[in-house]
């Protein structure tokens, strides 16, 4: 349609069995996994299945990080998001709602065709933006080794590091306050 959209696709697509082609296939599988997981997480009628979808989504994202040559971030994604966040959510669901909750009641006005149109517009806008941008290769910050990440975290990004730990501290205090309130004297 718009000729300017096709400008970036001038280079010939690599063959399917070359190294680049296989890399592309692997990448597409990861993206498909992530998106499928996300869709399951949003559309599932049962809460536990939504968590399962979230797990699939996070695993796909971890794979993408690994693909982008940062195994440390990938493993952290697995350890924290799958191993801690998802399990805690599933745990909470099991403790709180032993019977399966199926969505009932009138749906919100945005969930019908209006929502579909909005999603379509947003998706179209993002696709157009992605195709019009000329992507420059970002400079490599460091080798991606654990040692360098550690040094960077404790020197250049130490402020960020401390702020993150404050967020965690607040979460712990909040949990304690909520847990304390439920106790009888």
């Amino acid at each position, binding site marked *: 349609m718009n000729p300017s959209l096709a400008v970036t696709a001038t280079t010939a697509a690599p063959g399917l069995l070359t190294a680049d082609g*296989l890399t592309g296939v692997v990448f597409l599988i990861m993206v498909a996994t992530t998106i499928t997981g996300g869709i399951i997480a949003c559309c599932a009628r*049962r809460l*536990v*299945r939504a968590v*399962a979808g979230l*797990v699939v989504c996070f695993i796909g994202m971890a794979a993408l990080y690994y693909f982008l040559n940062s*195994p*440390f971030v990938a*493993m*952290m994604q*697995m*350890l924290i998001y*799958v*191993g*801690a966040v*998802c*399990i805690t959510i*599933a*745990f909470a669901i*099991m*403790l709180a709602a*032993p019977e399966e909750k199926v969505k009932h009641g009138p749906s919100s006005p945005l969930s019908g065709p209006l929502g579909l149109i909005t999603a379509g517009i947003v998706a179209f806008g993002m696709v157009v933006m992605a195709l019009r941008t000329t992507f420059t290769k970002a400079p490599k910050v460091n080798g991606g*080794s*654990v040692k360098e990440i550690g040094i960077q975290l404790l020197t250049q990004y130490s402020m960020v590091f401390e702020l993150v730990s404050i967020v965690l501290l607040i979460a712990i205090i909040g949990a304690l306050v909520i847990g304390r309130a439920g106790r009888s004297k």
Partner: protein
Amino acid sequence: MSLTLLNVIVAVVIAIGFAAVNAAYLVWAERRGAGRIQRRPGPNINGPLGLLQPPLDGIKLMTKQIMIPGGADKILFMVAPVLAMAPAIMSFVTIPFSQGIAAHNMEIGVLMIFAFASLGAMAILFAGWGSRNKYSVMASVRAVSQNISYEIPMLITAITVVMMNGSMDLKTISEAQAGGFWHWNIFPSLQSPLMPISFIIFFICSLAETNRAPFDLGEAESELVAGFHTEYGSMGFGLFFMGEYANIVIGASLTTILFFGGWDCPFGLFPGVWWFLLKIYLLIATFIWIRWTFPRTTIYGLLNLSWKILIPISLFNLLLTAGLLKVF
């Protein structure tokens, strides 16, 4: 780091084969060991010493019909056993069996094994929920709270070892311990004197993380029928079993690498992979021995042990190790 497709396929096949054979024959070893400890023969009919028992059991399990209980969540019910087995196989990829025998050596090997081990709790949750059985749900809640609480001291003690050796690479950690008994991390002469404490905490945690007796509260036959795999028959049950034993092998391998020098041989005989396997199987024999010697604890005793004893000790251990490293 160049991985051709053939390398990948060979590594995957070897990892799956090693995990499967180990799982099958560790069941045999467990039953024989239990028999010996309880003064009865154990499986000894099929083949010499009963060695044909595992393949026969496998055939039996595979030919049985898969029964899905009514009202169960079918997808989660079917996914859970796969999810129990797959991460265990993934973890084999990074374990160095010897100087040259590792499918893919990663700089963050320790982290990777913990990352995939955390998926095991997910499998238990899905199994318990998908079965639509009260015993299963209770068992999976128990098993997951246990897994979460023992993951913390285990990671903290692993960090002490990582700090001592200055690397998360399993191969580098093994290489750093080369040169005989007294160079191994467990022995305090050259390393930190706190290492035996780390080892004990790590060993207890790996027993708990693999849901082994005395910490098998997730199965607890006496109270919860069979725990989270009550409703599973045929190969679904088989996969849970294989996943458990594959996890035991990984736990033993990790303990060997972190504390017993990996493939290092104490006397200079038969270097390499044989020593590694010997150390693994000695540790697994200890696992089996402990299982059939100690009675099961209670769930409160279990959680108290982790939160009130192991976590504070391991935190102190971490601080003291850091202090020692700074001073010396």
